[in-house]
């Protein structure tokens, strides 16, 4: 059943479809399996991290550390696979534990020390990237046959390759959607976003939820780091600088309010695709200079925000009218 609350999601979906149609009419080659496969593969790491970011933002927080955590994960994996003989799967488990713990620690700091997430995760951002530097400043290649096996897993259609990591992203989104809407944890996340004070008085376990949220974000950043290491077969301490801003932009374009409480994990998926589409379009165009690229990206970001704002306004107006009707109807209770 479609409800007014689903409107932002529908708007994002519509925006994506519309934008894709426009791009395809300009460059018919964009209507190919390759482009679709590329959208999934190339944005896999960003998408996975953005799922975590969606939870954080839904709860009214923000996580600036994910770009650094991704880089750290890559370097950690590369160094450990280079210097020891442990199996990548063990290394994955290790690094996921580490990043989840890191996220949980940030969540605990935010909750127990009552510090704003922006600042705590900013310090986390410095720390994670610093740790990556300390491990290795050079880019460390990963050469392990298990990596080759994983990279060799793809499904080929018309020269397009649907790779494992793209599938992993889709899976992450599915799990994220179910978690957000069908579990108590998910409901508590929304509750926190609706108002921490009220949520607390309603008995939401604020400490546990806050720590959980940042742990999820850290863990997914770790997963994203694993995906990024599969994507580039290397660990590099300078990688994925500023990815947190991309993730935030994707979440916002996906219809989630930065103030928390309102939004959908599924919206972020389309937010990611829209951002990927913008980049693909710019490359297909190929005439923009370095600076015009930046200006156009900023401009398109603005256009999407504006479009969303306009549609939301229209929807709210309609909802307000509907509300008046309901209110009148129920004013005479009993």
């Amino acid at each position, binding site marked *: 059943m479609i409800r007014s609350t689903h409107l932002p999601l529908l708007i994002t979906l519509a925006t994506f479809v519309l934008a894709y149609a426009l791009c395809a009419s300009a460059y018919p080659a964009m209507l190919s399996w390759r482009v679709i496969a590329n959208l999934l593969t190339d944005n896999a790491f960003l998408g996975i991290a953005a799922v975590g970011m969606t939870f954080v933002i839904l709860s009214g927080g923000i996580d600036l550390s994910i770009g650094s955590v991704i880089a750290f994960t890559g370097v950690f994996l590369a160094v450990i696979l280079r210097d020891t003989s442990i199996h990548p799967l063990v290394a994955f488990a290790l690094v996921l534990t580490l990043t989840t713990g890191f996220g949980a620690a940030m969540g605990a700091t935010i909750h127990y020390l009552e510090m704003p997430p922006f*600042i705590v995760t900013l310090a986390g951002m410095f*720390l994670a*990237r610093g740790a990556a530097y300390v491990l290795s400043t050079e880019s460390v290649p990963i050469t392990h046959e298990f990596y080759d096996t994983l990279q060799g897993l793809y499904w080929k259609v018309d020269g397009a390759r649907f790779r494992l990591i793209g599938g992993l992203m889709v899976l992450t989104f599915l799990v994220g959607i179910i978690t957000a809407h069908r579990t108590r944890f998910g409901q508590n996340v929304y509750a926190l976003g609706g108002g921490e004070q009220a949520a607390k008085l309603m008995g939401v376990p604020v400490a546990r939820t806050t720590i959980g949220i940042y742990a999820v974000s850290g863990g997914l950043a770790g997963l994203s780091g694993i995906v990024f290491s599969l994507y580039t077969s290397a660990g590099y301490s300078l990688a994925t600088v500023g990815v947190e801003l991309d993730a935030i932009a994707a979440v916002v374009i996906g219809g989630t309010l930065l*103030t928390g409480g309102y939004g959908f994990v599924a919206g972020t998926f389309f937010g990611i695709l829209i951002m990927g589409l913008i980049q693909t379009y710019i490359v297909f165009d190929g005439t923009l200079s370095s600076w015009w690229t930046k200006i156009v990206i900023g401009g398109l970001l*603005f256009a999407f925000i504006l479009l969303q704002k306009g549609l939301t306004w229209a929807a709210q107006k309609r909802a307000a009218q509907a509300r008046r009707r309901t209110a009148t109807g129920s004013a005479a209770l009993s």
Partner: protein
Amino acid sequence: MSSPPVGPRPSILKRIMPQLLILGVALALNVAVFPEFFQIDFRNGRLFGNLIDVLNRGAPVALLCIGMTLVIATKGIDLSVGAVMAIAGAVAAAMVVEGHGWGTAVLAALAAGGLCGLWNGFLVAVLRIQPIVATLVLMVAGRGVAQLVTEGKILTFDNPGLIHLGAGTVAGVPTPILIWLALAALVTFGVRKTALGMLIEAIGINERSSRLAGINSRVLLICVYLVSGLCAALAGVIVAADIKGADANNAGLWLELDAILAVVIGGNSLLGGRFSIIASLIGALIIQSVNSVILLSGLPPEFNLVIKALLILGILVIQSPRIGNFIYLLRASGPQPQPEPPHSTQEEAAR
């Protein structure tokens, strides 16, 4: 009739005491890694010493955090200041390269910064876009605009007037120090000697109520972003003048984060409300002192970020309200002063 209890107004010194203490510790760390830290000479017509460097190099962040403090007081945030710095620097450089005087160039740069501020303010106050997203737009696009002005080059200039703003001295004191001190004094005075400060705090705490109380929150919001844009423009001019060139790609890169950090270290809440520009400025100096420790320590650069992160974390933990409460409780748990039931006086008054 007795009057209601008033209590002394919290003094400024008390408000900034934690920041001053932390600054003291940061400076002490500097001395620990470099004993002659406090030595100041007069050399080559200018004051020369590490302490002067801290004040001088702190100028961009100090300037940014003046505007940022006001923006944050309104519950906003301005991510675009770094990009605005780049634009302003580029505009100033382009103007003098074209042969205009330095005064015109600075005015043009300020105009550009002001325009950016107005744009942000428009998005936030009129279109009601959340500040972090609204300013993200300019953060992304602004650097492009700056590069458009410089066409991607480092636009070098040798206009002595302009250069003086960044690298010159007045009576031996580097000009940037004087500029940020003057602007800080001006803005602090401007918001505290008028009612602006209180009105800004009010809209930061509860905009709806403030509007209903008759405050023109829209104009005030736009003004605040305008000030932030102007501060950023000034910082951009100084940074360009300092290196005699506008480096559109790198000028002010990630400085927005430092500015926000300075405001938070200054004890201002990111949730808006009460603010202190002086405390933010001390925050900026703390950050610069931390940078100075890193440079003077001689450790390899791969440790820079870890050191910075740990120091910042330490500073923030010390400042956390929880820890503050804890200390308060520790102090209070001594011999309990037996406060009078606070209402008794009024009750008499009521009868």
